[in-house]
């Protein structure tokens, strides 16, 4: 058993998919968030499996440690009862599920078609098993402005780097920070403002 990859994939991927489905069908919002947490953790292990250690770790750090905590805070701050649920009617469920199955069929068909059509080309250029070391270093250099561009023989001038997007994202995050703090700051309710 020289290659564990497919076995690990078939172990992780169905679990991740099941957690995603559970996220959708759970009515209680905190349970739904918990299932989302499992989905995110599964996705991050998929990233580790694909050799993208850095992306997987960032997924854990940002999503699980940051975003999910925010979501739970949001639930706690907006809950009227102890464990809130909001019901969705049967007709809505039926329509959504049919639409979902159709969407999944389309996407699956597209994926199969793509894989089939590019099978020959993929066979000859499947890259060697990427070492995480190379990946993280390359990503870091790319974000800091060292040209890392696509390793395409047809495009020899490797001049693509990601300094500008990186800076834009940083500024964007700053804006988000200020904006979110501004929006979420404590305000008196409308009635209270009107009362005096």
């Amino acid at each position, binding site marked *: *058993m020289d290659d564990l990859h497919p076995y690990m994939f078939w172990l992780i991927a169905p679990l991740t998919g099941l957690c995603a489905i559970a996220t959708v069908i759970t009515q209680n919002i*905190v*349970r739904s968030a918990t299932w989302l947490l499992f989905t995110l953790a599964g996705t991050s292990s998929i990233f580790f499996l694909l050799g993208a*250690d850095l992306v997987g*770790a960032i997924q854990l750090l940002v999503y699980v*440690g940051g975003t999910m*905590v925010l979501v739970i*805070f949001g639930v706690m701050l907006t809950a009227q009862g102890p464990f809130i649920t909001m019901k969705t009617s049967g007709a809505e469920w039926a329509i959504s599920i049919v639409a979902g199955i159709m969407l999944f069929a389309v996407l699956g068909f597209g994926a199969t078609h793509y894989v089939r059509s590019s099978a020959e080309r993929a066979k000859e250029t499947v890259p060697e098993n990427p070492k995480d070391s190379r990946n993280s270093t390359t990503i870091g250099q790319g974000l800091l402005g060292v040209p890392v561009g696509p390793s395409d023989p047809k495009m020899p001038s490797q001049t693509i780097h990601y300094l500008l997007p990186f800076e834009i994202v940083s500024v964007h995050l700053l804006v988000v920070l200020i904006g979110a703090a501004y929006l979420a700051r404590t305000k008196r309710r409308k009635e209270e403002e009107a009362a005096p």
Partner: protein
Amino acid sequence: MLDWLSDAWRDYGIFALALIASNALIGFMLINAIFSVWLERKVAGRIQDRLGPTRVGGKFGWLQTLADGMKLLVKEDTIPAAADQFLFRVGPYIALVGSFLAFVALPFGDGVVAREMNIALFFMLAVMSSEVFGIILIGYGSGSKWSLFGGIRESAQMVSYEIPMALCVLVPVVVAGSMNLGEVAKMQSSIWNWLIFHDPFTFCAFWTYFTCAMASCKRAPFDLAEAESELVAGFHTEYSGFRWLVIFMAEYGSMFAVSGIACIMFLGGWSIGVPVELTTFFGETIGLGTFGMVIGNVINVTVFLTKGWILVFVMMWVRWTLPRLRIDQVMMMCLKYLIPISCVLLVGVALWTLWIPAPIQRYIAWGIFAVSMGATAWLVMQMITLAKLPPGTGMPGMWRLADEPGYHGAPKAEKPA
């Protein structure tokens, strides 16, 4: 005859190895929790001028935790009626998994690591940050206001303290140029190469990191999440039996994990202080081959565990010495002081390595090393002198009997006539 065995080993050996490694790690977490709980009780006892556990297991009560653990295993496992069953059950395990995954990337010795990773440090910080979600679920799912308060405090605190902690731990990374914990540890083979002595910024970063680590492990004086005097037991008020055990395994596990990071990034990992690679020394210099390398690594692991547990001991020492802060003080300390300090340290160390010429860097490093060694020696001397004095002398302002000579305290109470 053994053909099928070797075939099976070739095919499934990797699974067996993975199983052994994960069991070893789980076992280590369990033993770590058992040992730490015993140490905690002993330290607490000694600091409060009592004995702590003394009976179970003969000397020093060293089997006390095992007995407690067995008691916890057979205890009734209650789930409150108001609790959300699913969240209540799943919360402790999320916390445990977060703590356990940190050990996957933590090297205990030269190559003694479950998964060697290039970004091991980052990975450890990431998985330890996911522990907080388990705590929130524990607090929320219990359906009790004490738990909810504890959970919310805990999450606010952990999420905030992650930032200065990560920034501080980046300071030695700037110096070492690697996030691979094994590589960083190997760089610091001799004691004057330890990254804590490299420059003033790494020296300060160690103390800042350790403060943040204590806070993110919810240890006193930052244990607002389980403030017994206000919140009964905080987020784990409703837990009992095995699940409670799991929560504590996670807590002591992450205590050791942050101490392990501190050891490797600042205190030389498994270095014994002299520039000798023990595995190479026993393996090649003495000529014992593989057996020698194993011996070398056993010593490495022992040294590393000792250092880690010394830091854990310091955490306990602090816990039983300092009073608890208020929640607003805890948050203010992080947001107003620790984050700016750690930012300054990070920028400072970057400029230091860029601008200060190498000879000056080396002189200053030697200076820091000499001063720290002097301070340590002075501290040890103080401890020895104080230990030799009769009780009640030596420490100014200490409580003592008013009748004894040398009493400086409040005037003796007049006897009512």
